[in-house]
């Protein structure tokens, strides 16, 4: 029987009070953003905000709870932005969005930081077996960064994968790991690079005992990229069915899927709040298209991060996902 797991890819919006408080505490300029050595007042504000979003997820009834990545001023580039071997340079566009992050320029050998592990530790105390870790996938993190140390793309991707492995090994126990890989869609790897991307993901996935979900978004993977990704030892591939249905279905039909899948069915970038029933119906529709009789686990999630949303709409989306997973479970039973 299929298990339905409601979750999110993390990177939440800050509660509105925290937007105000942290604006005042930190400032609005480039050099005011998180570098990993913030003072006690800032840490306390983030701790409070983290407690709040963990509570919001638990109240909504989500099956997996993330710590929210509220400190990730640079979005998916955060794990590099806090590293000593990285200089955070000019503000650059975050994919095709009206959002910006500091270009992380890697100028030296990447060494362990432990920054993300600390955040998870803080959330770990509040959760009971439902903790989900979130990291950028190695391909996306390398794609978002600028290399001035390793010299070539393959070496850089390998170094980023090594770095993420080290970070991941320091994480407290977690049930699931989401590796976010929008660059696999937005800046698809070429021949040879696609295989290396899959190997890098495989290496990172090997550093945790948790179930690993690789979530690409803003479209469907090119078929070769998808085929290579299936070679990695991961538990689930994610599909952004908000941005693209046809090509995702094509990939499923032509190449099959992992035993578990993650379905991005609620729009992480729209304030239009979906009906839980509509999401449940879309799950069924995907199953009808896929050439498998059953998936073991189906993660129901927003297609993208949710920091794009006003806070109240974000809360509504979480509730919809939780309810949709319950409905699907009932239907399946």
């Amino acid at each position, binding site marked *: 029987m299929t298990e339905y797991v409601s979750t999110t890819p993390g990177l939440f919006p800050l509660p509105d009070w925290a937007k105000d408080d942290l604006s005042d505490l930190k400032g609005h300029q480039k050099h005011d953003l998180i570098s990993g050595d913030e003072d006690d007042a800032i840490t306390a504000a983030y701790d409070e905000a983290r407690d709040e979003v963990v509570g919001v997820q638990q109240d909504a009834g989500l099956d997996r709870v993330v710590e929210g990545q509220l400190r990730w001023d640079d979005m998916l580039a955060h794990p590099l932005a806090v590293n000593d071997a990285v200089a955070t340079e000019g503000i650059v566009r975050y994919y095709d969005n*009206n959002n910006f992050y500091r270009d992380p320029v890697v100028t030296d050998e990447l060494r362990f930081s432990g920054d993300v592990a600390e955040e998870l530790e803080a959330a770990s105390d509040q959760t009971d077996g439902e903790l989900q870790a979130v990291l950028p996938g190695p391909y996306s993190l390398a794609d978002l960064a600028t290399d001035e140390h390793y010299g070539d793309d393959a070496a850089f991707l390998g170094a980023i994968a090594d770095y993420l492995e080290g970070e991941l090994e320091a994480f407290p126990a977690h049930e699931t790991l989401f590796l976010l890989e929008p660059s696999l869609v937005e800046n698809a790897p070429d021949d040879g690079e696609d295989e290396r991307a899959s190997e890098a993901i495989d290496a990172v996935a090997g550093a945790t005992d948790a179930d690993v979900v690789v979530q690409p978004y803003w479209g469907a993977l090119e078929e070769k990229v998808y085929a290579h990704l299936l070679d990695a030892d991961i538990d689930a591939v994610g599909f952004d069915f908000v941005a693209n249905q046809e090509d995702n279905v094509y990939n499923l039909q032509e190449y099959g899927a992992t035993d578990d899948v993650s379905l991005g069915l609620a729009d992480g970038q729209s*304030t*239009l709040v979906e009906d839980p029933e509509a999401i449940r119906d879309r799950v069924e529709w995907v199953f009808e298209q896929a050439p498998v009789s059953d998936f073991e686990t189906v993660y129901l999630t927003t297609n993208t991060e949710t920091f794009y949303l006003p806070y109240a709409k974000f809360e509504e989306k979480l509730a919809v996902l939780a309810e949709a997973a319950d409905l699907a479970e009932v239907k399946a039973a």
Partner: protein
Amino acid sequence: MSNENKDQFRPENHANDNFLLTTVVGSYPKPKWLNRAKELYEDPDHGFDEDDYQEAKDDAARLITQEHERAGLDVVVDGEMRRNEMVEFFAHRIEGYEFNGPVKVWGHNYFDKPSVVTEVEYDESWLVDEYEFTADATDRPVKVPITGPYTLASWAFNEAYEDDAELAYALADLVNEEIEKLVEAGARYIQIDEPALATTPDDHAIVGEALEHIVDDIPEEVRIGLHVCYGDYSRIYPEILEFPVDEFDLELANGDYDQLDVFKDPEFTADLALGVTDVHVAEAESVAQIEENIKKGLEVVPPEQLVLSPDCGVKLLPREVAYGKMANMVEAARNVEADLDEGNIDIERGAPTPADD
């Protein structure tokens, strides 16, 4: 060669034969007391009421319009003293939008990104009062900047339309209605601001189609400009030459004219409103420097087709720096005009810039 559309803004007593129209993109630093007035107005415990705040905005609009006049600009704006943010201001005036709270742009910079939840409709005029007030406050021609429909669509959540293009076209019809009212009130110079085009340059056809809606039935003599900034222009040129506008207002000083060659081939057939001062440098460029920048424009278009303005809105600069940039720009424009009159400037148009060694 004459350029009737542009020459309608030529001052009667203009000293030179050549005329390089000087103007601004729109926004200007708000006087500190205006921000204070806003705080008082928003403070429920304070007696400063809506009338008081309105008066403060009137005072600021008059002050900045006159500051533009003093700097010598040929076409002035009120510095957008009444506008808070370029999307929010319009979204509050258009039926169909609702606000659900701030969203992140970057770091701790947020924006009240609205949602379009029903069909957009024209209610009351957005800018006629603003225009009439400004026109009364000066003898110079007044330009009216309007956030373009593509940007109004892209920088909102779209819950109501099939896609952002449909929303943009619906908004373009409203912009058209507003321009008709502005023209009735006497406006002759409208600028459509489309910064969102820089994010998604592949959508230039949508912007072009929206502009067709915007200019529908607008008299020929009304000057329509399009402001685009901070993008890769090679992805929208030469396609934009097909747009039904008289002028393109482009940011180029910020990149030290590294994208200038894009506009040399094919020939730039519209008027070029060239950014000749960088709004991200908090220091006024010298008159000599701006003269050199103006000459960059002459590599693309003849003087008849050249208009001068800063790269973008100057609202983030200290006010005295913003003023210095405008005053120097006007002085530089008059110097270059005089040099052109005397035949001292010999610039080959359309020739690519030689690569630096």
